[in-house]
């Protein structure tokens, strides 16, 4: 039965490409928007230059959940794709099932471990094995702001959350929506993640979001996080229900709203309208005493297959992805920064440069940490508790103390 589903799925999603090459590799991913496809083509062209064919299996939708389902049925049927895009803990979890190919020889020869921030290694290695080649890095805790609205209101880029709230209130009095966002739990989660670290420091983020320490989760510091989240709610208009993140970005671009908390994929919307960083719009990290760099990466893992030509193509693909030149070309289009720390970003826009420099500082200060909302901190069963509680709190009338209780019991229940 699952073989039938797999064949049916495969038949509907494959784009036929010209035959005749040294080998072919099927890549399962969930990138379907224009900029994503353009960015992938950088990898694809380089791979084709090496004589290998890229067989595209894009399964979009549900933030990658649909692609994961497709993968499950393919693996059950004993017919895994050559390579697959991994988010969060997915790669590690598949590696634990023993179906992912170990790329350790390539990683050692190519010095991959040294080229990556140590914080990334838990997501691309499993024990001694190197299981996935990371292509890019997004930062989740950005604020995007309309410069003209800031200038007209005579406000500057806020340096603390208290200032940010004051700025928002000033803007609100002028009839501007201070913060544009939707009610989806992940959009609320972006703010919650940032507050965890910005208000209480990166150690607190480590203890709560990553170590799930019950004491820290139930502490008065956590109450402060929810108190501030309530303040942010006061800056959001009442029509935020069902609003897509890109629509919210559009509100900032059009001057309807002043700020948006969003990862750097929002930058593409500004650039596509011909707007210039710092001239037309501001990009700055969510304010904190120690600047947090909350990352997420996309990586590609290879499955264990018996076909030798596919095995060769897997090596070629992994090397292509880790090629600094490809990382640069890919990320220039995608709007993220290279996963490798050693790729210069001189040709990138000002926001990417800022992110790149703040990343180097954050690695030193220990404030480069995985974003919970995108699955780079606690495992999904816990991460979803954070986003559930933050979302319920944000849209309702719950008190901060109740939210903390709900968080602690929710995490315990998922253990």
């Amino acid at each position, binding site marked *: *039965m699952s073989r039938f589903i797999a064949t049916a799925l495969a038949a509907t999603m494959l784009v036929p490409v010209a035959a005749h090459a040294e080998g072919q590799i099927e890549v399962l991913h969930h990138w379907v928007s224009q900029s994503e496809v353009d960015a992938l083509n950088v990898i694809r062209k380089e791979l084709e230059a090496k004589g290998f064919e890229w067989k595209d299996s894009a399964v979009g939708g*549900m933030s990658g*959940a649909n692609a*994961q*389902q497709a993968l*499950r049925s393919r693996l059950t049927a004993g017919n895994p794709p050559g390579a697959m895009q991994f988010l969060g803990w997915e790669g590690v*979890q598949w590696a634990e*099932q023993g179906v992912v190919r170990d790329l350790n020889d390539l990683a050692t020869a190519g010095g991959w471990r040294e080229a990556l921030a140590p914080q990334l290694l838990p997501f691309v290695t499993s024990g001694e094995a190197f299981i996935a080649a990371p292509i890019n890095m997004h930062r989740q805790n950005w604020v995007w702001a309309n410069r003209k609205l800031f200038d007209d209101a005579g406000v500057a880029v806020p340096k603390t959350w208290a200032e940010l709230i004051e700025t928002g209130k000033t803007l609100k009095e002028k009839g501007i929506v201070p913060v544009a966002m939707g*009610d*989806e*739990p992940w959009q*609320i989660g972006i703010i919650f993640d940032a507050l965890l670290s910005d208000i209480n420091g990166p150690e607190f983020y480590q203890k709560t979001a990553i170590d799930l320490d019950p004491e820290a989760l139930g502490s008065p510091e956590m109450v402060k996080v929810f108190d501030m989240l309530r303040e942010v709610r006061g800056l959001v*208009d*009442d*029509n*935020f*229900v*069902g609003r897509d993140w890109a629509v919210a970005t559009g509100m900032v671009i059009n001057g309807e709203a002043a700020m948006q908390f969003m990862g750097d994929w929002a930058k593409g919307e500004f650039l596509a309208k011909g707007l210039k960083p710092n001239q037309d719009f501001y990009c700055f990290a969510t304010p904190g005493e120690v600047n947090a760099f909350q990352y997420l990466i996309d990586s590609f893992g290879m499955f264990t297959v018996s076909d030798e030509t596919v095995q060769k193509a897997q090596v070629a693909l992994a090397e292509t992805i880790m090629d600094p030149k490809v990382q640069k070309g890919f990320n220039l289009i995608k709007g993220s920064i290279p996963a490798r720390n050693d790729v210069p970003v001189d040709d990138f826009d000002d926001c990417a440069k800022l992110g790149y420099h703040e990343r180097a500082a954050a690695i030193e200060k220990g404030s480069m940490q995985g974003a919970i909302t995108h699955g780079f901190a606690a*495992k*999904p*069963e816990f991460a*979803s508790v954070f986003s*559930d509680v933050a*979302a*319920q*709190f*944000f*849209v*309702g009338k719950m008190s901060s103390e109740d939210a903390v209780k*709900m968080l602690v*019991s*929710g995490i315990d*229940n*998922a253990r």
Partner: protein
Amino acid sequence: MSASTRMSSRLAGWLPRIVVAPSLLVVIVTVYLFILWTGVISVTSSKFVPTYDFVGLEQYVRLWATPRWHTAVANLFIFSALFLALSTGLGLLMAILLDQNIRAEGALRAIYLYPMALSFIVTGTAWKWIMNPGLGVQKVVNDLGWTDFRFDWITNPDMAIYTVVVAGVWQSSGFAMAIFLAGLRGIDNSVIKAAQIEGASLPLIYRQIIIPMLRPAMLSVIVLLSYIAIKSFDLVLALTNGGPGTATELPSTFMFSATFRRNQMGVGAASAVMMLMTVAAIIVPYLYSELRSENNG
């Protein structure tokens, strides 16, 4: 009797079974086998992929300790009860009104039935805009001068589930109407004539004679609408995406996210089993009583 006719009569006896066998097999495998498999998964510690160890009812305990599941169950009862009552009531009312030999009945029938031709995704998206306070009804009325008018259920976690009811009823009451209308047309006019001769008023005729005679139609409507209510995953997804926050979560959306997005396959399976048992607890006695009384009559 010759051998060949005996042969063919035996074949004739087996033929229905042979014809039904493949579809029966498919149903057994794709429905009942998977129900059984889901039941098995629900008593294991499965997270990311199925694991076959036995942990008893641990996943059920975990499920019932999840506040999100409580929201989902409460929403299912609110939604199903209102959706069933309103769709059936409105459908019956529209059918009775259409049955009064009015002009342009065909056109009206098509208009009322038309929403059924839309998918829930389209219905949900359209109603999302209609009920958004900044775009839809509220804005129109505000712009007309009634600036105090508020219709912001969709932004209110306590009221959002009723917006799902509104959209669902809008889509499905025409369908209920069509079934009732067919039922009404099947009623023998002489019964009504006889009642009129006896001096019964029209409301009395409807209450005492016609509506009771629509029982088979009522059975179809209730059974069909209740499974629409339980599987209304796409409507919620398009209309509110479970929001605001998690306020319009239904068991079906809970099950999907637990199984495929939260690494809690065991909890997802437990919630699926709970849904099955709930449906069975409601539908089975109803079917049993309806079908038995049919046999008696």
